[in-house]
């Protein structure tokens, strides 16, 4: 184009710029939703306008860059809505989705006029950032670190990260300082911004300061309050959350808000939500301790009483036992002795009386045996005597009879007695005839009778065969 600069047709700058303006106006008839990173808001408080610097990066390099405009009227409207939805204000370093008119002005040149910013998009971005932060903490294994610290039983010495003017801090102090029970807290303020991006740095600084002095403190309280829900995003920031998670003292957060729990609150040792709650929590700990101590005191006192009573009663029991048992033992022995004595006496008496009986018995037996024996002998004598008498008598009687019998027999044999009965006998020559041999006829036969003799002569002799 440089070759025919002079005689070439040309357009005035205005013409050309108006032409560009027309083209653009023709091409970009409506506003467009554009995504970019707002690296600087460039808010001019005096005019109220903003001139956000927008860039688009890729692989670490800037791929597009542009300054935009956000007129004060829009700014107020957008910022208010943004704040309402996201809990943060428009600020530097934000990825935003905005509605902008693409304009070209001959005087002011090319511009993007931001007429709306999608707060929901920002919300998504924030949520993602928060989620990334949590994942990172977990991945690094520090997410639970602070919660795993042990809170001292008596959380008495408190490093407070807050702002002197913060309502939350005032609330906290008024509860802690005015506790009616006379609890003594020690707290020291480490002042810091409590919201907005800048707060991250100051809070980290103060935490590091406290870390150096950690032997003076039992815990760190992050106290914020009264500031509404704006600028809370700082509590989702990895740098701060990591510092909190890794902090060697338990961190208790009381940052009072109504939005979702921030990452700092998640990783903090405990999150009572509000400064008031935090103060009450601490006071509650003291109360618990006071109760515990007085419980223990009661136990110690009660125990001592019971213990002594028990020991005394054990000893008394043993004493009574020893006394009773000794008495019992002695009584027992006494009664054994008594019974042995009775048995001895009884046995001796029994023995003597049984022997006495034995003697009597044996005497009687003896007497009886003698008498029996004597009477037996007497009986024997009597029996013999009687035998002798009767035998003698019988003998004499027998002999008498015998004599009588013989006498009678002889009487019968006398011849005179036969003759008397009529018997007679014959004799020849004085001899009784017993055979006929010597008898002759003519012999003289004399027959003898009781009254006299008859003389006859034998005439005939007839012998029997």
């Amino acid at each position, binding site marked *: 184009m440089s070759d025919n600069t002079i005689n070439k047709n040309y357009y005035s700058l205005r013409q050309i710029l108006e032409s560009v303006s027309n083209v653009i106006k023709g091409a970009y008839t409506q506003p467009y939703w554009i995504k970019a990173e707002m690296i600087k808001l460039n808010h001019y408080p005096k005019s109220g306008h903003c001139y956000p610097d927008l860039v688009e990066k890729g692989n670490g390099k800037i791929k597009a860059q542009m300054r935009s405009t956000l007129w004060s009227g829009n700014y107020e409207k957008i910022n208010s809505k943004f704040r309402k939805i996201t809990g943060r204000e428009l600020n530097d370093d934000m990825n935003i989705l905005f509605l902008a008119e693409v304009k070209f002005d001959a005087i002011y040149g090319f511009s993007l006029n931001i007429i709306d910013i999608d707060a929901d998009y920002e919300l998504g971005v924030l949520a993602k950032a928060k989620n990334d932060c949590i994942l990172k903490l977990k991945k690094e294994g520090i997410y639970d670190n602070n919660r795993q610290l042990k809170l001292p039983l008596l959380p008495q010495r408190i490093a407070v990260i807050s702002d002197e003017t913060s309502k939350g801090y005032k609330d906290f102090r008024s509860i802690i300082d005015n506790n009616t029970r006379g609890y003594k807290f020690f707290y020291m303020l480490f002042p810091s911004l409590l919201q907005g991006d800048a707060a991250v740095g100051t809070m980290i600084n103060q935490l590091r300061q406290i870390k150096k002095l950690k032997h003076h403190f039992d815990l760190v309280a992050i106290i914020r309050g009264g500031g509404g829900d704006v600028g809370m995003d700082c509590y989702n920031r990895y740098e701060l959350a990591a510092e909190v998670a890794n902090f060697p003292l338990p961190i208790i957060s009381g940052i009072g808000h109504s939005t979702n729990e921030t990452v700092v609150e998640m990783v903090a040792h405990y999150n009572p939500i509000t400064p008031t709650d935090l103060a009450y929590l601490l006071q509650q700990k003291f109360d618990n301790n006071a109760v515990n101590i007085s419980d223990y005191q009661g136990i110690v006192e009660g125990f001592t009483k019971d213990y002594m009573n028990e020991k005394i009663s054990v000893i008394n029991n043993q004493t009574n036992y020893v006394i009773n048992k000794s008495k019992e033992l002695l009584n027992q022995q006494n009664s054994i002795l008594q019974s042995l004595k009775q048995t001895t006496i009884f046995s001796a008496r029994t023995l003597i009386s049984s022997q006495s009986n034995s003697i009597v018995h044996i005497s009687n037996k003896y007497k009886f045996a003698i008498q029996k024996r004597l009477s037996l002998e007497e009986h024997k004598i009597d029996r013999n005597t009687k035998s002798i008498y009767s035998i003698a008598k019988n003998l004499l009687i027998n002999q008498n009879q015998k*004599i009588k019998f*013989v006498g009678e027999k*002889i009487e019968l044999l*006398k011849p005179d007695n036969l003759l008397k009965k009529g018997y007679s006998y014959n004799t020849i020559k004085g001899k009784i005839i017993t055979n006929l041999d010597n008898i002759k006829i003519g012999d003289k036969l004399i027959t003898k009778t009781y009254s006299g003799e008859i003389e006859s002569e034998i005439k005939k002799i007839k012998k029997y065969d």
Partner: protein
Amino acid sequence: MTKENLKYDDAMLELEELVREMEYGEISVDELSEKIKRSAFLIKYCKSKLKSTEEDVAEIIKEMSEEG
């Protein structure tokens, strides 16, 4: 044989023999008288002997009884 020397038992024996002889008739009438005389003597003797013995025994028994 005198009365003194004659024993009761012998007298009885003789007596019994005499009786037997007489019973069997082996004795003549003449002897018979003699034998009868003898028997009478013996009987008398025995009776007296028995009587004296009886008296003795009675006496002894009486004595014993009296003594209890």
